[in-house]
């Protein structure tokens, strides 16, 4: 009997969550395509396509395991789920009795599929939910909150209609999401101009109308000079600015020293080019986007750099303009209200352990500052943390200062790794719970916000291949064992989905046909004359009283980057289309085949000085740690930069394809487990020494 079916769902090979169409034959997944109802084609990036190889890979945790040796020894004992749950319930109970539920912390990678993790913490009464954004979007999130009351991702970009797109190092066409890449390409091919600024050439640069290699760490100077020209020459969208911008006078005074001539010396970009960029952007306003970035854990001044970019967008009037930045519309804008699982449990009023929202009032607790956790664990201040759950997150592989983490782990009574992969963190955990993969589980309903909001669902395509459980089953069972079952009242995922949809007229079955539910036929735009921003004033706050009251200036004077020491390079990392979120892709059969290791890209002038040739094996070191990697030489990189792809140098031996290949960027970023004003780690303030082996 040849039984074929198609299941619509959401990808999870990266955090893009692209809508997918999965072909199944006799219970076996044959192919994963993009959802044609969303993309207008079956397009799906290589990572998404390689989801089939991920699913049928045996090199992932296959059953619950309890540590059977020293932490990090890789010795495990297979246990039943019953034993695993009892082990955990026992440990959690003891910790809660002695230290309270707040002694339990959890981190994940953020996004809308975190409802059940958050609900679990809420049910117990712990405020200590963290995302990975300390090494990702914290600065851009917190900056945008302070300017416009929006997160990075509660607005979207109308690329298709954009006429002038200025990008600072956001490698849109390599570090890509299918839908976004398609829209950017459509923009370029219909005449929109892309100005690309980076410390190195990328495939995105290749498609640009203009490309500038900027001096590392000086992007803020460029943004200030652009503001200088736009404000002094009154190139801004006056109607919009008069209506919504608070602090134009303050801005004008502040930016006076930052002339294009000054910025040219800092950035290496000629003054006339900076001026031209400002004028060209203004000619195309409001269909202009100054892209604020995504992974923005770059520098200490990132918060102010990102604020400056959002200010540029405000000056162009690009908020809620065709071809600009639109405010993402949700189900509520279509008169549809879906219930969120977290709403079942009361909000936790306890203060967070990391100071987000208290000690650091301008840093939002919804993302947290995970880089503070090891210090909190070590010192027991402001209160002890005794259990840590790494939920599909791998801080040891993605946060700086590995040793600090491992040392802090020693003070924990419990380290839990819940993952579909062997992660570095799982190697140091006390217990590993294998999660059912994204193709083996159903998650909560999410809103796909945008101009045309949709509801979307990740649904189970096949039964788990191994002895794995869904996050729903894991957190529900744990909550029940801890006497908090009332907060997980649904029998299974489908019942939860239908509960979320109560009163909307939709049910779980409605996702079968297209995987998504369209809530509107026409794009929704707000009235540009009546916009409301979620800041204290309801306006765009160039001058922010809230920041000033916290002792933080609204705008901070530009600080010169630390000069690169002689014989050193500044380490910058990034991604390619074949790999993001290294734990999911680096050991994938096909993605590993096409891109098995990373290289250190350097400028010919540095290569000459150090006597290095293409392909040479070098030792890179910083702060007492080192990695080995091969060299590639390119003229299209700043001479003070060493660039490598993120996500390599895998230390987990059971991942046989990626084990030991290339170098880990994060290991080299030792010393960057810092809190900056944006809540981000300043990862790109790492200098590396290069020695030929």
């Amino acid at each position: 009997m040849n039984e074929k079916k198609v299941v619509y769902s959401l990808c999870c090979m990266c955090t893009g969550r692209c809508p997918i169409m999965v072909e199944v034959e006799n219970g076996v997944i044959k192919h994963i395509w993009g959802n044609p109802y969303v993309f207008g084609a079956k397009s799906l990036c290589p990572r998404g396509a390689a989801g089939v190889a991920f699913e049928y890979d045996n090199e992932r945790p296959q059953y619950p395991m309890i540590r059977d040796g020293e932490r990090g020894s890789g010795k495990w004992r297979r246990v039943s789920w019953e034993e695993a749950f009892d082990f955990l319930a026992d440990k959690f109970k003891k910790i809660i009795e002695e230290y309270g539920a707040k002694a339990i912390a959890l981190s994940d990678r953020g996004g809308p599929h975190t409802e059940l993790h958050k609900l679990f913490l809420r049910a117990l009464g712990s405020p200590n939910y963290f995302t990975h954004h300390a090494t990702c979007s914290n600065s851009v999130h917190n900056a945008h909150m302070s300017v416009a009351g929006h997160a990075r991702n509660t607005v979207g970009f109308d690329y298709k209609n954009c006429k002038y797109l200025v990008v600072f190092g956001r490698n849109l066409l390599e570090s890509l999401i299918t839908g976004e890449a398609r829209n950017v390409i459509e923009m370029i091919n219909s005449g929109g101009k892309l100005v690309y600024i980076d410390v190195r050439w990328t495939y995105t640069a290749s498609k640009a109308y203009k490309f500038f290699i900027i001096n590392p760490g000086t992007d803020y100077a460029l943004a200030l000079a652009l503001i200088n020209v736009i404000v002094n020459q009154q190139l801004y969208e006056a109607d919009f600015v008069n209506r919504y911008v608070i602090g134009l006078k303050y801005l004008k005074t502040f930016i006076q020293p930052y002339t294009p001539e000054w910025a040219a010396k800092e950035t290496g970009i000629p003054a006339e080019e900076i001026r031209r960029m400002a004028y060209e952007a203004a000619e195309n306003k409001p269909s202009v986007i100054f892209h604020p970035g995504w992974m923005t854990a770059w520098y200490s001044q990132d918060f102010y750099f990102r604020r400056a970019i959002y200010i540029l967008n405000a000056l162009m009037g690009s908020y809620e303009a065709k071809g600009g930045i639109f405010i993402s519309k949700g189900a509520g804008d279509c008169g549809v209200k879906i219930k969120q699982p977290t709403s079942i449990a009361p909000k936790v009023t306890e203060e967070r352990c990391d100071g987000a929202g208290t000690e650091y009032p301008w840093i939002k607790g919804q993302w947290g500052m995970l880089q503070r956790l090891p210090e909190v664990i070590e010192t027991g201040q402001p209160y002890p943390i005794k259990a840590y759950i790494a939920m599909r997150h791998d801080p040891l592989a993605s946060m700086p200062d590995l040793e600090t983490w491992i040392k802090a782990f020693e003070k924990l009574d419990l380290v839990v790794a819940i993952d579909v992969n062997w992660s570095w963190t799982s190697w140091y955990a006390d217990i590993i719970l294998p999660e059912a993969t994204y193709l083996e589980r159903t998650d909560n309903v999410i809103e796909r916000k945008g101009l045309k909001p949709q509801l979307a669902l990740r649904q189970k395509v096949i039964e788990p291949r191994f002895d794995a459980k869904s996050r729903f089953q894991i957190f529900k069972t744990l909550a029940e064992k801890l006497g908090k079952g009332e907060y997980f009242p649904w029998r299974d995922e489908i019942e939860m989905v239908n509960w979320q949809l109560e009163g909307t007229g939709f049910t779980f079955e409605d996702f079968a046909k297209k995987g998504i539910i369209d809530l509107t036929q026409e794009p929704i735009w707000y009235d540009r004359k009546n916009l409301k921003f979620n800041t204290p004033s309801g306006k765009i706050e160039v001058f922010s009283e809230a920041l000033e009251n916290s002792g933080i200036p609204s705008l901070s004077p530009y600080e010169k980057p630390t000069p690169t020491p002689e014989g050193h390079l500044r380490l910058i990392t990034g991604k390619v289309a074949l790999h993001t979120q290294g734990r999911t892709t680096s050991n994938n059969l096909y993605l590993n085949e096409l891109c098995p290791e990373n290289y250190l890209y350097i400028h010919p002038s540095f290569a000459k000085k150090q006597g290095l040739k293409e392909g040479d094996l070098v030792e890179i070191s910083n702060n007492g740690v080192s990695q080995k990697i091969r060299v590639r030489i390119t003229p299209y990189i700043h001479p003070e930069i060493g660039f490598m792809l993120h996500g390599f140098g895998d230390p987990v031996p059971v991942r046989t394809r990626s084990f030991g290949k290339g170098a880990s960027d994060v290991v080299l970023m030792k010393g960057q487990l810092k809190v900056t004003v944006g809540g981000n780690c300043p990862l790109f303030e790492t200098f590396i020494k290069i020695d030929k082996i």
Partner: protein
Amino acid sequence: MSQYLITQNYKKCIGCFACVVHCKIENNLPVGPRFCDILPVGPKEINGVPRIIFVYMNCFHCEEAFCMKACPTGAMTKRVKDGIVYVREDLCIGCKSCIKACPWGIPQWNPNSRKVFKCHLCMHRLDRGEKPACVEGCTTSCLNFTKPEEATANIRREYAERIAENLKAILR
């Protein structure tokens, strides 16, 4: 020549290798062989910006196929109804003559079966009325599965449209 043609819009291609991965998944290829491929060429500076071109390669399914002529057993076969050149595995003896004969390096060595296999334009999909996997899955839809007569008609139309864009200059 088969009656089909895959064209590539260089301006839209971003070198992401989705075509290669979709192909390998669809045809369940082992590590190593690639039925289609992306060859990055460049970067080369053009008007001050280093540009790269990603050349998409798959089998041309030649009318006078070198691989077929070289094949001593008749394993390299042309499908009568549409001219697709494919390998009949039962007849292949693994002599690799086709690999040496093809000027474009198209026939691939299958390390598992120790025989040759190659791009067959996903003929199992074509027979269901679907496009080859590389075209279907392409991230930016830069690949187009077409026929030569359609392709030339499209090129003419696009050229005419470019001329039309410049109508002011022409009719000044």
